[in-house]
């Protein structure tokens, strides 16, 4: 178990380093940073001053290692646009994105687990087919469209929820629902197929032969095994939700990390871009590791590996 965690951690560090390198190189590939920072009305002399001031005249590898070295201790430099340190910016935006991601994932699990289990237990009935239909429709609906519909119905017509901003917990309900819908179809189908497979297995026949109650058979013996793939995918989905919620953050004017990344790309604020990419990558790595650990806890066969 410890060896498994150590191996996954080492792998995670490698992935993080790779992501840092790529983020660094790709921002440099997007054009001459000194020119874009100096602005369109700058003279050649201004650009040279900017280049010196930001250290962009140094060789690429020197810039890279300087950045990596500082990033290791949490110093991501200054934003060119916000007049604030990048670390501060991310610290301010992160809680919003994390709240949104967790609300989204919780909602997704609360909806997809019961639906998947229900569909599996009623396989090939109208209930099962309705659930499948629901997941297909859910998969096909674009996030921004669902967001707008919810805003119109819940926000404007019924007036039960605020349509934008981050003031109270109510502000996270609608974005959470929209975000949840990006994960619900996959999680529901996984739960369903996992439960169908588990319920048809020999060990469930044994559990029934032991005279266990139906609830215990379903929720202890079958769900424990069906949950293994669901946990892996849920972790990946949460990573996806944290990074990929840009559309939702934009529509609902939630100023989270995704939105920050999008803004800084548009403004060529490359220290922020690099840091956002790195932070999201670290989250992704952490979540995958967490999924591996949870899976090892759920499935004893993985513990020795």
């Amino acid at each position: 178990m410890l060896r498994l965690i150590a191996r996954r951690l080492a792998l995670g560090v490698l992935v993080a380093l790779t992501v840092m390198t790529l983020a660094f190189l790709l921002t440099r590939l997007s054009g001459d940073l000194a020119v874009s920072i100096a602005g369109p009305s700058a003279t050649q002399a201004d650009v040279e001053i900017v280049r010196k001031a930001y250290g962009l005249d140094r060789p690429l590898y020197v810039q890279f290692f300087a950045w990596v070295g500082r990033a290791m201790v949490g110093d991501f430099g200054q934003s060119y646009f916000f007049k604030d340190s990048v670390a501060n910016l991310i610290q301010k935006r992160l809680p919003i994105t994390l709240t949104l991601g967790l609300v989204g994932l919780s909602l997704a699990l609360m909806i997809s687990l019961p639906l998947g289990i229900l569909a599996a237990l009623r396989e090939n009935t109208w209930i099962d087919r309705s659930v499948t239909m629901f997941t297909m429709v859910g998969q096909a609906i674009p996030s921004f469209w669902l967001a707008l519909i919810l805003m119109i119905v819940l926000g404007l017509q019924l007036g039960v929820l605020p349509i934008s901003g981050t003031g109270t917990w109510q502000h996270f309900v609608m974005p959470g629902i929209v975000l949840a819908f990006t994960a619900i179809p996959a999680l529901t189908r996984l739960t369903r197929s996992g439960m169908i497979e588990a319920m048809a297995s020999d060990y469930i026949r044994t559990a029934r032969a032991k005279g266990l109650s139906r609830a215990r058979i379903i929720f202890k013996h079958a769900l424990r095994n069906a949950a293994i793939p669901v946990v892996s995918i849920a972790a990946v989905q949460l990573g996806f939700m944290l990074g990929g919620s840009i559309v939702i953050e934009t529509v609902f004017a939630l100023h989270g990390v995704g939105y920050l990344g999008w803004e800084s790309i548009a403004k060529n604020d490359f220290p922020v871009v690099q840091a956002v990419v790195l932070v999201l990558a670290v989250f992704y790595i952490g979540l995958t590791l967490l999924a591996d650990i949870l899976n090892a806890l759920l499935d004893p066969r993985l513990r020795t590996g």
Partner: protein
Amino acid sequence: MSTLLEIEGLEVTFGRTAAVRGASFRVERGETHCLVGESGCGKSVSALAVMSLLARGGQRSAKKMSFAGTDLTSLSDREMARIRGNRMAMIFQEPMTSLNPAFTIGSQMAEVMTRHKGGSRAAALDRAAELMARVGITAPGMRLGQFPHQLSGGLRQRVMIAMALMCDPELLIADEPTTALDVTVQAQILRLLAGLKRELGLSILLITHDLGIVARVADHVSVMYAGEVVERAPTAELFRAPQHPYTRGLLSCVPVPGRVQRDRPLGSIPGVVPAIGAGFAGCAFRSRCGHADETCTRAIPRRQAGDAHDYLCRLEPDWAEPQPA
């Protein structure tokens, strides 16, 4: 000896296929009763029907299904669950997959006890360890904390047996319990089952296709063919004077010392068990039987060949030694 389990006219259908067609057999207290026959003749389905464990789509009906005086056909699912694992336990052909991979041996064994008899988990674990020792598992204390994948097939089958014994059942149904195991382990498991029967007064319904096993452990035998019990007899009598052509065919397929001649090949029954649909009449074996004539398409009488020996065939009892086919 009194009857523990009495099954009469058991029918099981899966959609349009009739898997069991009016099977009747009885298990006396303290005896080992064998259901024997080829693959697909309805042995396992009959046992699962007794346990109410049929897969989805399986429909069961019976003239009589009586277990220790209780009418099993009248029980609700909930009431049946109270009997399963408690007074009537079952072990299966596939020891490798019959245990839940996600839970320890101890937790899977203990829950049978806490479910049916109540009591603490610690007491249930004690009982589990005691039974594991009884079925010949060394270091039971350590095994309790292990997971199924850490055990061999033979050990897992022993765990299944020990688990089946947790609530001291009256009946143990064993569905081909040794088929997936290698020969030395097979012999150990059979010896174990025989010992349990003797010492605990356990009644065993053993399902097998292996006549060697039947000869070794059975007190009574019911031979099944295409969903029917075609012959019932005490074991010794069945081997001495089989009456049904199918039973004779089965016996000719296995080497018996003194009966098989060195230079002649062993017998075989041509063809396979036919799938039987609704509305089938007459003898299901007629397509493979050397004695078949037109009367075999009509209803077949059950003939008596001894006190506890009957069979389903148009032929009169014949006491001659069966000849190799």
